[in-house]
């Protein structure tokens, strides 16, 4: 790979699983940024300013400018302020933070410590998806290493700066990736999102000012401090600074996590993944995780991979989870599986989402199973009208956008199903196309 990497720099795939320890990270230049901040007595404002200059945008999916978010934290607050890392990665297609936690957990710890310094937060939690238990255990070990080396805890490196950091695990609830549901979950409650406002910066964990960022966002911070915000911005493109991890799944030869500069043309990313599996043709792609609208091949092939370009094409870059589908995929069946997911994962708090996701799943299910009715596509769009914008959090929208976009771009396939009571793509073709894929042993 020729382009510069910063999140995965110096990590060799063959040994990556063994080089996550503190010594390894320090050997790669780790913790130099935290030491610089403390030794030079950078002001919190200067740190935030650097992050603002970098144009780093939240890597969890929303793409909100990180420096701006940090500046919302009240400076003069007398009590404890909190910092949370959102590693509750459970959006179908998203598995980038898993690689960061697996291969470079100290980078996340260092990023959080710098963020804590900038915002004056004394306590932090990293909320880790329960299903990746081994990484939760590893993160706890990394915390022990950092604590023993005086890099977190009280009076860090003799500077007088205090930051306690802990790991908290989820236990199987997609909704906890929503930041206020995550806070509820840390408080030992059901992960049901809160109304906003008040925003977490004024009323967060235990009712105290809190900032929540994604794992990858924190991981980018040390590089920005060492090299300057402008350098980071230059790695990407205007308003879309830096590099980004893309987790590519589906019908490519080598699914996996790829760090590329923002703005890379999609065909090049596809090439890095070894191209389409079995030489089949690209049919569709979901560029930003299962909640993002699907795009047909001809639109996708024209896109560059950055927030603004993907938004212009009618979808979202989201978490950078690229789900690639070839011509063997039945779009009705694909949507049915996604709709089931949202129905299963709706927290049940808001009626439009609780009831609506069930309607979406049942109607797509009946179309897929040859029981669809002519009016069903209008019905589906009508249900999404009644969900979108009428719920506390974005899960309702996340369930609706796939339905609307699948119908918009692949309407004829849905109509064929309804008229002919069967798939346009023969079942044996589907089965062959999605059989167990043995990845070449490269990455």
């Amino acid at each position, binding site marked *: 790979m020729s382009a510069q990497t910063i999140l995965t720099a110096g990590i060799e795939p063959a040994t990556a699983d063994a080089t996550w320890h503190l010594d390894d990270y320090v050997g790669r230049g780790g913790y130099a940024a935290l030491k610089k901040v403390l030794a030079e007595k950078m002001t919190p404002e200067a740190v935030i300013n650097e992050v603002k200059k970098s144009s780093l945008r939240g890597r969890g999916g929303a793409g909100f400018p990180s420096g701006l978010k940090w500046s919302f934290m009240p400076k003069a607050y007398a009590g*404890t302020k909190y910092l949370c890392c959102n590693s509750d990665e*459970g*959006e*179908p*297609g*998203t*598995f980038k*933070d*898993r690689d960061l936690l697996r291969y470079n957990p100290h980078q996340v710890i260092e990023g959080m410590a710098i963020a804590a310094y900038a915002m004056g937060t004394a306590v932090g*939690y990293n909320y880790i*998806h*329960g*299903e*990746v*238990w*081994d990484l939760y255990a590893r993160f706890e070990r990394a915390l022990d290493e950092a604590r023993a080396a005086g890099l977190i805890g009280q009076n860090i490196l003799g500077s007088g700066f205090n930051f306690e950091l*802990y*790991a*908290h*695990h*989820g*236990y*199987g*609830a*997609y909704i906890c990736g929503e930041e206020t549901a995550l806070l509820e*979950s*840390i*408080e*030992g*409650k*059901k*992960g049901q999102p809160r109304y906003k406002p008040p925003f977490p910066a004024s009323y967060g964990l*235990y009712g105290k000012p809190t900032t929540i960022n994604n794992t990858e966002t924190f991981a980018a911070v040390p590089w920005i401090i060492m090299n300057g915000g402008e350098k980071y911005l230059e790695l990407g493109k205007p308003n879309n600074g830096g590099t980004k991890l893309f*987790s590519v*799944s*589906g*019908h490519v030869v080598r*699914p*996996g*996590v790829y760090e590329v500069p923002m703005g890379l043309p999609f065909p090049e990313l596809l090439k890095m993944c070894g191209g389409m599996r079995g030489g089949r043709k690209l049919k569709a792609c979901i560029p930003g995780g*299962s909640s993002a609208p699907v795009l047909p091949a001809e639109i996708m092939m024209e896109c560059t991979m950055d927030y603004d370009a993907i938004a212009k094409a009618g979808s979202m870059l989201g978490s950078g*989870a690229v*789900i*690639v589908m070839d011509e063997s*995929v039945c779009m009705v069946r*694909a949507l049915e*599986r*996604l709709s089931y*997911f949202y129905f*299963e*994962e709706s*927290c049940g708090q808001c009626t439009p989402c609780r009831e609506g996701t069930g309607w979406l799943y049942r109607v797509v299910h009946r179309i897929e199973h040859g029981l669809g009715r002519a009016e069903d596509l209008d019905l589906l769009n009508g249900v999404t009208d009644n969900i979108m914008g009428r719920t506390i959090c974005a899960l309702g929208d996340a369930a609706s956008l796939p339905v609307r976009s699948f119908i918009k771009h692949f309407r004829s396939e849905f109509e064929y199903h309804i008229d002919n009571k069967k798939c346009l793509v023969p079942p044996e073709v589907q*089965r062959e*196309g*999605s*059989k*167990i*894929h*043995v*990845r070449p042993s490269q990455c």
Partner: protein
Amino acid sequence: MLSDNALKRIDRELTKYPADQKQSAVMAALAIAQDEKGYLAQETIAAVADYLGMAPMAAYEIASFYNMYDLAPVGRFKLTVCTNLPCALSGGVHAADHLKQTLGIDFNETTPDGLFTLKEGECLGACGDAPVLLMNNKRMCSHMSTEAIDQLLAELRAEALAKPAGPKS
């Protein structure tokens, strides 16, 4: 009710949170209790709630909301296979079919010998390694071809023979 070892582990979790926020440790405490007991019976949930000074119903709310908790007995080895779209595109459904066929059970069923329970999982966050399955909530098994599945089942059966029954470690 819970062993000293389990309580010690819960105590360690409690050190992460403010002294007046013991409820924050409930997710970890329930996971620890489930590891020890195999599943969360009403009295186990009540014991955890009691230890943390919260209402049993508040702990039950947690146990029933998060889907990695088991409120009914499961086999010694619970296998959760992801069949969500990204995994399905790389063989997740084939892997699940192979497990169903080999074990002779459907999702949410347990083999008559009490060894295996099969569950359909939602996103495990490891789509790049599809097919993936999670063993007893803790061990992620990647690239599960039919051969890899057969090997895993053989390994677990051998483990059961070597260390019969008893509570989960």
